C-alpha cells in the first residue's frame, strides 16, 4: 500500500500554476476512497511558505518542500533526480502533474527513473469498482478517448490537462504541515546549461492556461482585422488565438496558433470568429467547455461542433458583442 497521492505543485514566477489546484481538488475524493493522504510536492530554492498555504487551501494534507541551490531554475536533470529520490524514499502510490511543458517533461523522466506507469494529458481521474485507479485521456488528436489502467506499476503517474478539472473553492482556514527535504544534487548531475530565456508575449496569459479565448481565422481578412478581437478580449479578459489559416497568411505568429499542430487549449469559453472549424483546429480546442462560432458561411463545419453559433458578418457581430459585454461589465 502506497503512502499518499502526490501532486507536483508547479511554480510560476510569482505563484503556483493553477492546474495544481485543479488536481488537488479532484484528487480529494479519490484519496478518501483509497484512504490515502494528499501531499503536494514542491521543488525549488527558498520556497515561500505561502505556497504551502495555497496547496493546503485546495486540499493538501501535507506539503513537501524539496529544496536545493541547483533547483532554483527548472532543469529536467535536476528536478527529475530530486523528485525520483523522494519518490523512492517515500513510496507514494501515485504522483500527478499538470500536463504543462514542465509537467510532461518531468513526469516522463521521473517515471523512467522509478519505473512508474505514466499516462499523459488526462482529462478524467477515477477509481473503478475494484478500487483501481484509472484515467481517461484523448488519443488520435481527440478522435478516440481511452481509459488507461496501471497494472504492475509500483508507482502510478499521470499528467492532467489544464482547465479541464474544476477546482473547488479554496478554504484558507485549512493548513498543512510542511516537511522540508534537502535534495541530494551535485553540479555534475545537471548536464544542461540555460544560456538565456527569451520572453515573447509579455504579461499575457498563455493560450494553454487561458480561461477565455477569442480566436480568428481566414474570415478576419487581414492582420488588422484582429483588432476587433483584441478589443473584445480586453473586455472579457481573454487571450487572442488564431487558426492555422491566419498564421499561414502571416497575420499572427505560430505561437498563437490553436490547433492540433499548434497549441491545444481547453478554456471555459472559446469564441471562434471567421474560422471554418476543420478537424485539426477542433483537435486543438474541442475540449473547451463552451464554444461559440461566428461565421458568414452557414455551411462551415464549426457550426456542427459549437454550442452557440451566429451565421453573419463577424465585422458587425463582434463589435456589437463587445459593446454589449462592455455594458454588462459596467453593470458589474
Amino acid at each position, binding site marked *: 500500500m502506497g503512502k499518499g497521492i502526490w501532486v507536483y505543485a508547479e511554480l510560476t514566477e510569482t505563484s503556483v500554476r493553477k492546474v495544481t489546484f485543479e488536481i488537488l481538488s479532484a484528487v480529494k475524493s479519490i484519496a478518501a476512497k483509497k484512504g490515502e493522504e494528499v501531499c503536494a510536492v514542491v521543488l525549488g530554492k527558498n520556497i515561500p511558505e505561502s505556497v504551502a498555504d495555497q496547496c493546503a487551501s485546495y486540499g493538501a494534507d501535507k506539503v513537501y518542500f524539496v529544496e536545493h541551490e541547483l533547483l532554483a531554475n527548472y532543469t*529536467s536533470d535536476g528536478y527529475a533526480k530530486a523528485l525520483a529520490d523522494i519518490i523512492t524514499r517515500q513510496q507514494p502510490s501515485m504522483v500527478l502533474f499538470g500536463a*504543462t*511543458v514542465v509537467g510532461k517533461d518531468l513526469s*516522463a*523522466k521521473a*517515471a*523512467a*527513473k522509478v*519505473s512508474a506507469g*505514466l*499516462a*499523459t494529458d488526462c482529462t478524467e481521474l477515477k477509481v473503478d469498482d475494484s478500487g483501481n485507479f*484509472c484515467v481517461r485521456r484523448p*488519443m*488520435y488528436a481527440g*478522435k*478516440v*478517448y*481511452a*481509459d*488507461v*489502467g*496501471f*497494472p*504492475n*506499476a*509500483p508507482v502510478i503517474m499521470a499528467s492532467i490537462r489544464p482547465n479541464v478539472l474544476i477546482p473547488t473553492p479554496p478554504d484558507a482556514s485549512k493548513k498543512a504541515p510542511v516537511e522540508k527535504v534537502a535534495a541530494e544534487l551535485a553540479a555534475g548531475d545537471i548536464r*544542461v*546549461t*540555460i*544560456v*538565456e*530565456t*527569451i*520572453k*515573447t508575449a509579455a504579461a499575457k496569459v*498563455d493560450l*494553454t492556461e487561458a480561461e477565455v479565448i477569442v480566436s480568428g481565422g481566414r474570415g478576419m481578412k487581414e492582420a488588422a482585422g484582429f483588432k476587433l478581437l483584441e478589443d473584445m478580449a480586453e473586455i*472579457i479578459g481573454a487571450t487572442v488565438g488564431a487558426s492555422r489559416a491566419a498564421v499561414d497568411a502571416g497575420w499572427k505568429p*505560430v505561437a498563437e496558433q490553436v490547433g*492540433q*499542430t499548434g497549441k491545444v487549449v481547453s478554456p471555459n*469559453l472559446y469564441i471562434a470568429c471567421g474560422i471554418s472549424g476543420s478537424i485539426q483546429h477542433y483537435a486543438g480546442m*474541442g475540449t473547451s*467547455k463552451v464554444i461559440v462560432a461566428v461565421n458568414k458561411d452557414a455551411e462551415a463545419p464549426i*457550426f456542427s461542433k*459549437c*454550442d*452557440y*453559433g*451566429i*451565421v453573419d*458578418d463577424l465585422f*458587425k*457581430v463582434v463589435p*456589437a*458583442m463587445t459593446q*454589449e*459585454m462592455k455594458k*454588462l461589465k459596467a453593470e458589474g
Partner: protein
Amino acid sequence: MNSIVCLKQVPDTEAQIRVKPDGSDVLLQDVKFIINPYDEYGVEEALKLKEKFGQGTVTIACLGPDRGVESIRTALAMGADKAVHLDDPALDGGDAFTTARALAEQIKGMEYDIIFCGKQAIDDDAAQVAVALAEYLNIPHANLVVKVEVASDKKKVKVNRQIVGGEEVLELPLPAVITCQKGLNEPRYASLPGIMKAKKKEIKAVKAADLKLDAAQIGAAGAKSKVLKCYAPPQRKAAQIIDGETPEAKALKLVKLLREEAKAI
C-alpha cells in the same frame, strides 16, 4: 556527424479512427499510414546536419510492425542512409518505457553524436518515449526544440526550446536526445531519384532476442500502463444557431445567453 532519428509510423492525420465494437482497441484497417509528422522534422534536421558537416550517416530507428517499412523507406528517400527496424511480436503491447528500453538497447551498440525524436506521436499523443530513451541511455535531452546549432567540434549543441511565454536557449553536451517541435524546419519532399535509391538502402531487422533484455522488460509483460477501453469522443449537444433581424440583434442575444445560460462571461 552521425545522427539517429527515431521514427514511428502513425495513421494519417485525416484518417477515420473507429473504435472496435467491444471497445478493446481501435480499428486500423484501410487506414493510410504516414511518418509521424514530428519525427519528420527530426529526419530533416539530421539531414541538414549531415549536409552542414559534409559527412556522417543518418540512421533511422523504428520500433513497430512490418507496415512500418513503407515509412522507413520514405525517410530513406529523403536522404537517410540506413535503418534499423525493431519488429517482433514480443515487443508489441508495451508502453512507452518498454519501447524506449528496446530502442535504448539497440542504440547502445551504435555510433552516434545526436538523437532526434518527435515531440509526440500523433496516435497516442503521449510524449514519453524520447525522454525515457534519454534516461535509459544516460544522456541529456531537450524537448520542444525549434532551433538546433551543433558546435563545430561536435561536442555540444545549442538549442532553442519552447517554454511558457517564450523560448529558452539551452546548451547540452553531445550525445543528447532532441525532441522536435513544429517550426524547427520544413521537411524536404523526397525526389524521385531519392525514392529509387531508397529501395536499395539497408533496413536491418532486429528481433527481441537480439536485444538481450529480460522478457519482463519488454512488450506487454513489461508494460506499466495499459489501455483498458476505447471510446468515441462525447458528442456535443446540437448547436444553437442564434437568429435575429440584424447582426447586432443576434450579437445581443448571444451575449445574454453566454451570461445567463452558459454562465461563461
